[in-house]
């Protein structure tokens, strides 16, 4: 894989000296990195390194204790999560956070919340423009499901889906918010080889459609295959950053992993 990132590529997101403390626990400690436009950035690190917390801070679920986050040059520190989605940062959750009792299509349909333009009272009166808008969004939802290979199961109740499909649906919902930057939190956890291969293709497809992706992932083979650049976090601090090749040979990274869990590097 040839890296798409050149030194002069624009930064879409910049995390600047961010710390996050939970009481006495320091989850993220003076962390700085940036995500470059239309790259796939991998964020890796041993369990409990603070990776998910970083995504939480970026997407506004946790307020940062210290430091700033910039998105497209704009300071988004302290904004609420629903405002950050509006600016164009979509996120998928680590566990299967879905509307389990709704159909697959409805899950995506609900994700279009920000796309609605017509007023509620027009919907109350069944105004043609409001109904048309709804039809269009439904079609867009089906389009997303088609792209992600979930169209055959669009009318299934979400809780009946196999785990792999549920993870993909999480990504579909994030896509419905029409993001410029997509944050993925361990999209391949608990998947078998076939499912991982599917997911790799899908994530590449999303990037090729012009989106930037920052993802946390434990599966090393997948990360090394997919990511243009990698940031390694341990104990809330950045211990390495670079191309997959550089990371693989980085002694500090190997130490951080082997010191804790030898098996992880085997993928």
């Amino acid at each position: 894989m040839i890296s798409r990132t050149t030194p002069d590529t624009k930064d879409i997101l910049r995390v600047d000296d961010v710390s996050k403390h939970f009481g006495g626990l320091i989850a993220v400690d003076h962390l700085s990195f940036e995500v470059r436009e239309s790259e796939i950035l991998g964020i890796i690190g041993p369990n409990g390194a603070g990776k998910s917390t970083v995504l939480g801070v970026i997407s506004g679920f946790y307020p940062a204790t210290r430091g700033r986050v910039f998105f497209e040059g704009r300071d988004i520190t302290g904004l609420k999560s629903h405002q950050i989605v509006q600016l164009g940062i979509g996120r998928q959750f680590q566990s299967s956070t879905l509307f389990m009792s709704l159909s697959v299509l409805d899950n995506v349909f609900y994700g279009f919340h920000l796309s609605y333009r017509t007023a509620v009272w027009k919907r109350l009166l069944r105004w043609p423009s409001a109904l048309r808008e709804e039809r269009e969004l439904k079609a867009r939802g089906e389009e997303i499901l088609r792209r992600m290979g979930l169209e055959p199961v669009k009318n299934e109740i979400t809780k009946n889906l196999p785990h792999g499909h549920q993870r993909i649906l999480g990504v579909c919902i994030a896509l419905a918010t029409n993001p410029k930057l997509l944050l993925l939190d361990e999209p391949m956890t608990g998947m078998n080889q076939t499912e991982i291969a599917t997911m790799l293709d899908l994530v590449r497809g999303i990037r090729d459609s012009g989106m930037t992706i920052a993802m946390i992932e434990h599966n090393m083979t997948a990360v090394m295959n997919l990511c243009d650049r990698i940031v390694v976090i341990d104990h809330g601090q950045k211990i390495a950053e670079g191309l997959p090749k550089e990371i693989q040979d980085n002694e500090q990274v190997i130490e951080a992993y082997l010191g804790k869990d030898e098996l992880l590097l085997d993928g």
Partner: protein
Amino acid sequence: MKNLLLGHRRLIGFIVLAVFFALVPLWVDSPYYIDLLIVLMINAVLAMTFVMLLRTGLISLCVAAFWGIGAYSSAVLSLKAGLSFWACLPLSTIITAVAALIIGYVIIRNAGFTFVIMTTVLAMLFVTVVGNIQWLGAYNGISNIPAPDPIDLGALGSIVFDSKVDFFYLGLILFVIVILVINAFYASWAGRAWNAIGLNPRLAQSMGVNVFRYRLMSFVVGCAIAGLMGSFYAHYQTFIIPTAFNLFPKTIYIQVFAVLGGVGYATLGPIVGAGLLSLFNELFSGFEEYSIIIVGVLVLVVVVFLPRGLLSLGEIPARIRDWRSRPGGGGGSSTKVAREPDTPPGEAAGSGSP
């Protein structure tokens, strides 16, 4: 397409029900039963507003208090300010909505358990405060609230509100309008945002839903509807007392109506629940003290064996079909991605339970 048909089926069902209701006075001439039906409609609407808030994950125990705010503001406007019922009805709805906006703005920030306690306190506060204001008649309440002014239809004569049947039709019109408005809200993106918040607030937030604002919106809409019914109630009863709007038994019963019918059925559930309990109270009208025990047992049985309410009985055939079709082929769901052997058992078996 399927949704469209379903929507039509529901609409047809609704029209049939409304017409059936409208024809009731033709063969029921006892004012007692007409009164029961009017109270049933009020109760059902109050339970609908409770369900509306429940959809966004808020358990409100002050439904009756806002119903009371509507009733009291309407009574005051008509008796102290001399306004006609036709002005009082919209004005008291607006007053209730404004009160809900102010109160909701303060208490909705702490959703969850705090909200339940806050609304409980509010419900009790309403009775105590109103009961101690002489200007509002204290615990004796307000009486002699005038009936609506006659509607002049020119050559056709006029509609005079002097019998229960006239109030029944007025109530029915309000009832139909409220149900249409509530259902339209649920069908709009606002209703979907409410639903999303109730199902999973974190996921809703990640979709860009402003959780606080939409909760506040459902609170204001729900309370305004309760206020509208309060105004109607005050002018129908002609007298109101503060204890009628208390937490117990009023709000508790409102919840029972909603739970009996099934909180998943936003409008039909409360109607069925309120109707069933009215029927029960009729059957056991001779021995009041036992009827409350029987109601209690009935609620327990429904909650334990039909947690999604009596109306979920209607879904059993579809569920059996669903369950039968699944072992043979899984509905073609796992075509591209192989089924994960270690799917969490809770998720997989969830739909098989009653």
